[in-house]
């Protein structure tokens, strides 16, 4: 799934991001394959997204979130 599909409160692990289409700054802010990302909330108009990446707060736009592959973390139940 993609990062923008997360619901507020859900956590996921970044799997892949397309460096050709995303600015290097995203990586520099700590978002890269292996990082844990949590969606805290969306702005009132559904964009931008307020995230926590490895515990550090970050805000990005939806179009950017759409280009980040993530894997949902489900606590307790495995292999859902």
């Amino acid at each position, binding site marked *: 799934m993609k990062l923008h599909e997360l619901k507020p409160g859900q956590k996921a692990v970044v799997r892949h991001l397309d*460096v*050709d*289409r*995303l*600015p*290097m*700054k*995203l*990586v*520099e*802010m*700590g978002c*890269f*394959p*292996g990082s844990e990302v949590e969606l*805290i*909330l969306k*702005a*009132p*108009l*559904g*964009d*931008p997204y*307020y995230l926590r990446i*490895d*515990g*550090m*707060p*970050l*805000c*990005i*736009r939806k179009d*950017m979130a759409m280009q980040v592959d993530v894997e949902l973390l489900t606590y307790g139940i495995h292999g859902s």
Partner: protein
Amino acid sequence: MEVKVALVGNPNVGKTSVFNTLTGLNQKVGNYPGITVDRKTGVSRMGDTLKVRIIDLPGIYSIQPNSRDEEVVLETLFDRHNTYYPDVVVVVTEVENLKRNLLLFTQIKDLGFPTVLAINMADQLPVKGIRIDLEALSEKLRTEVVLISTRTGQGISQLKAAISRYVEADKRPLLDLASVDETYFRSMDYKSWLTRSQGAVFEGVEPVSDGLSESEIKRLQQKETVRRYQQIGEVLKAAYTKDASVATGWQARADRLLTHRVWGYLIFFAVMMLVFQAIFSWSSIPMDWIDEKFAQLSAWVSATLPEGKFTELLAEGVIPGIGGVVIFIPQIAILFMFIALLEESGYMSRVVFLMDKLMRPFGLSGKSVVPLISGVACAIPAIMSARNIENSRERLITMLVTPFATCSARIPVYVIIISLVIPEQMVFGFIGLQGLVMTLMYFLGFLAALTTAWLLKMVIKARSRSYLIIEMPPYRRPLLKNVLSTMVEKTRAFVEGAGKIILALSVLLWFLGSHGPASTFGKAEETVIENFAGKNLSDDELQDEIEGYKLRNSYIGILGSGIEPVFRPLGYDWKISIAVLTSFAAREVFVGNLATLYNIGSHGEEETRIVERMEQERRPDGSRVFDLATGVSLLLFYAFAMQCISTVAIMRRETNSWKWTFIQIIFMTGLAYFSAMLAYNLLK
């Protein structure tokens, strides 16, 4: 000997507080040669012999440049011959986001600088449930690490001691580039890699050619950054623990409230109203006081000093000129107090978050909100605050439309025109019509800014994809010291920057207004006495007539009659034309000039007297000069026209382009001219 110490760090780590704590009041703000970016330096003593020059650089996340702010830092750190090239770098970080902060630290360290790591906000450790093992951290990073708190003063002397030991610093790089890509980095050091990956220039470092594509280089850059984070992660695993059970629940609740779809906007609106309110009402007391004092000073000078050209220049040119600058200090200071409070508390980031989606259809970003809001005080600092917008198109559009925001210099013009042409009556029984029109003028400013932005978006091609990446800093209680130093620093920059220009112009205007051809201007007194002979004028009235005659025949008066045909379609007579023309240097001279023009000795901003006199002003056909048509025409002209030399100068420097500077002048002034003409002809 003087040692240069650069403070480098992410935004929101309290770097400025560290700077203020280290330097006290021994600081000064300057500009980098060529570009205007605030650079602050200050002096600090460490031990008995060491004198240290501290250089505060804009906050950055990485040494890869994404915005103008970041480029500035790199110019200082990469160029050995730069005046501010440091002998030692202090990387300032904070306890909560240490991991992200350390990315920049490892890059600085790898550049080969003697480096000290300062971890700020130590007072937050128990609150956030964080433990840091300084010894382990210091050993793993091969760097002196100091835990400090600018709030409590903890660790500052240790930081100074660590800086003074800079010669002993371990300068070996932390990252082994070979661990990123063994074959590619076999014979390449960090500086060569930066030369290749981001076009950096270092003395004595040859450019690298390797035949790799842009995309392959980007992939290597990503690998490098990820590798750095892995290394940081390993270091922190041993030296950093956070107790997850320590809740920061109120922060999350504050976020939900302040970004709520109803409350969020309402609170933002309320905060803005408070700021506007404060700018107008709080500042009126000190402004009146300054006004009065300068008027008194002028009067005192002309009464005390021997009569002559020099006294006139001082009393009518220089002192009112300085007064015209000083009078804006309260507004500028109050505005920057609020801007500092909004930024320091962490609220500004929430506003950016809240507004981003709304701003994008106009080719702007959430970050454009900050300049547009600051523009209500003064376009100069507002345009400079657009520097952290990464996307060049969004930054350019923001700078181009910011001068439409109703700046404080327009207030006196609006006040006098509105009181002349808008009747003093109530709408719906409780809203004052004059106040309503004033509010409408503010909306008109923002509307013009947004509409123009939308038009520019159609015209200016996007050179790079627009994106928004901002940190959401935790809410913090603002430090009084920082708020005060921001106020002082920005006010001083305003006085020194805009002040010089306003001063020079007022002297020039005085000269042109008080001199004229000997054949007419020189014989003013005789001519007027002759013309009014037998009309029984009092001495005061006669004096007023003489002043009026002098002005009409001064160089500026001659210029005014020359320019009148240009402004006639807008409904302005020659006197208004002069006032408008002189306003092209700075709008705020309008009222003072009109006052002189209507033969009143302008003792400060005596708006009621001026209003009375202007009301009585008649056209040759007996109709009022300041009727609704001319009034609305003037309001529109002042709302849109680019009438500020300082803004033009700052635009030239910030855009580094005469083209955009001229486009802005022509567009704004053209819009002003045609909308004023339209309004005049519709209402006439």
